[in-house]
């Protein structure tokens, strides 16, 4: 689904990703863990196409296309979704209208007519239930005045609505209480199919108790330094990140 090779990227003059490589196949869940400041969020933003990050080397194939050749909006319409660590508030724009516009654009991109209003509302209802969001949130301004947990649930709701091929969750678990965490994880588990994939960026092992990854990668100084199965997450939880740092200094 996505193949990242030797990706170098940074902000202004500072290189943050230093030769990041990773392959994700359809049906897989990958987790990326690592200490603060190792470039996890930079990876998420760079893949999503944020202009403030500059790619200096490497290549990324997404579903058979050159990802780096596309603008952020085209990447999204091609099926890449980023659940933001800090979702943005847009005053005066309801979640309903926002989603209606986003879905219409995606469908147009794939040569489909706009969704019938009835079908759209049914989809909304189904996905609201999935993330246990009350319908009053749908008419409120997007993320405005939402609590941290509500914002994250709203991200998962949007993900469910847009039905992406690859979903990147950027520290979606940070700041969530145990109930919200369960709801978010539950949403991801229900959305998982053999045709889509997830890249879960997290700091803690906690989320991975609910979403069981096929692969866990440890990121340090802008690239993956260790990969393993779900047990690697437990090991990290137990031993912390210091041994990773030491290992990499020795190398």
């Amino acid at each position, binding site marked *: 689904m996505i193949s990242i090779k030797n990706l170098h990227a940074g902000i202004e003059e500072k290189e943050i990703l230093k030769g990041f490589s990773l392959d994700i196949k359809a049906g897989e869940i990958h987790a990326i863990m690592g200490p603060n400041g190792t470039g996890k969020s930079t990876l998420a933003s760079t893949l999503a196409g944020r202009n403030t990050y500059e790619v200096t080397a490497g290549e990324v194939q997404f579903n058979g296309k050159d990802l780096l050749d596309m603008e952020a*909006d085209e990447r999204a*319409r091609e099926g890449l979704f980023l659940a933001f660590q800090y979702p*943005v508030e847009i005053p005066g*724009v309801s979640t309903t209208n926002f989603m209606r*516009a986003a879905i219409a*654009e995606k469908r147009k991109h794939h040569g489909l007519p706009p*969704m019938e209003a009835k079908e759209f509302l049914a989809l909304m209802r189904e996905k609201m239930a999935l993330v246990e969001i009350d319908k009053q949130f749908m008419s409120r301004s997007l993320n405005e005045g939402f609590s941290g947990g509500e914002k994250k649930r709203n991200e998962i709701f949007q993900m469910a609505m847009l039905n992406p091929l690859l979903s990147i969750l950027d520290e979606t678990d940070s700041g969530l209480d145990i109930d919200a965490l369960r709801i978010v994880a539950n949403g991801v588990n229900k959305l998982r199919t053999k045709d889509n994939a997830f890249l879960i960026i997290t700091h803690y092992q906690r989320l991975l108790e609910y979403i069981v990854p096929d692969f866990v990668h440890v990121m340090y100084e802008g690239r993956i330094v260790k990969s393993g199965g779900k047990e690697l997450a437990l090991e990290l939880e137990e031993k912390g990140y210091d041994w990773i740092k030491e290992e990499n200094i020795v190398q």
Partner: protein
Amino acid sequence: MLQDNDKILEDATNSEYKWGFSSPIDQEFATKGLNEEVIRFISGRKDEPAWMLEWRLSAFEAWKKMKQPKWQNVTFPEIDFQEIIYYAATRKKPTINSLDELDPEIRKTYDKLGIPIKEQEMLAGVAVDYVMDSESVFTTFKSQLAEKGVIFCSISEAIKDHPELIKKYLGSVVPVRDNYYAALNAAVFSDGSFVYIPKGVRCPMELSTYFRINAENTGQFERTLIIAEEGSYVSYLEGCTAPKRDEHQLHAAVVELITLDDAEIKYSTVQNWYPGDKNGKGGIYNFVTKRGLCHGKRSKISWTQVETGSAITWKYPSCVLKGDNSIGEFYSVAVTNNFQQADTGTKMIHIGKNTRSRIVSKGISAGSSQNSYRGQVKIHKTAENAYNYSQCDSMLMTDHSGAHTFPYIDVKNSTAKVEHEATTSKIGEDMLFYCNQRGLSDEEAVNIIVNGFCKEVFKELPMEFAVEAQKLLQISLENSVG
């Protein structure tokens, strides 16, 4: 709504000013320049009674002694008032009884503007007065309105048919000597709309005037007068466009509203005069005096304006809250792009007890434009327990555009309560990226963010107008992020 959105997107892809054509209509003009003879010509051409001519001439005398104001935050070269043609009208001005008798070129013009007269009349149930250059062309739905006692006609007709109302109210809210352009208008106004809603009548449909400048080198000086008798209600809409021309054209209108006890007037404007090209060449100077007098107790006047056009917009729709417990409202969206300038806002003059006013202003500046909000809240000594709430938000689309806020607050009564909030924001990279990440292009992202920003104002507009306003905003802001 989905289809509307698609249409908006399609329209946005060709962001040229679409209303910039002119029509080959056989017209008659006054000689260029301004003098007593020209005023006599206009008055005579309109068959006016002697008292009206006298009124015009006294306004002209007053105007000659006045000076052009200089305090506004806009710049333009000195206007040569002798270079303007003050009257242009279709040569044929027969009495028109039905739409079929309308000059086909005029029909075509309105069709091109996307407001087919017949269709609009049939579908929307909106009564429309069409004003081209100096003359009212046609008013729809007259007879149905007459059944309710509502008078909706051109002001020229009203001068002839309802002189008692004109004598009583014309110039009663905006006096002849009020300001330089109001005096000029009083001297040379050629047409405009007149509305009278009798006691206790709720006007059964929206009333609307569509203004169109067609002729070259002409100024448009229309005058609108709306009177709402006790307990009556009317919603009035105003739209306007003009052809693309390299020269600036002057539009100096006067609008007067009067509400008696328990009456309400809701006045909505979508202003889309030609704004000039990308380099600031051409465009309309829109210097307008709009004022409402809440004369009666518990009466209400509400102004809603969406200003996207004109090279320079300079106007302050105001409310004089004379009646106790009367209410004034002002909702405004002003968009400027390229080299457009806007200095707009409102005045809320509290005189009566328990009077309330609300101001919501949204300014959007793109390109190299300058956008100013200027508002005055004046609480007189007599205005016990007056209350004002003002909110002025500005959004900058580029680093080289400007937003300015000039609030003037003058309180003479200690029981008054005045609240003012103001914000300025640059359209954020984080907001745009968030929208991009959901599949929206920059243009669509701007559209959705700006519409959200203006929501409080748009919700005050009648439905069809709100859709039109959204389209205009999108077209005005095409390629504006920088």
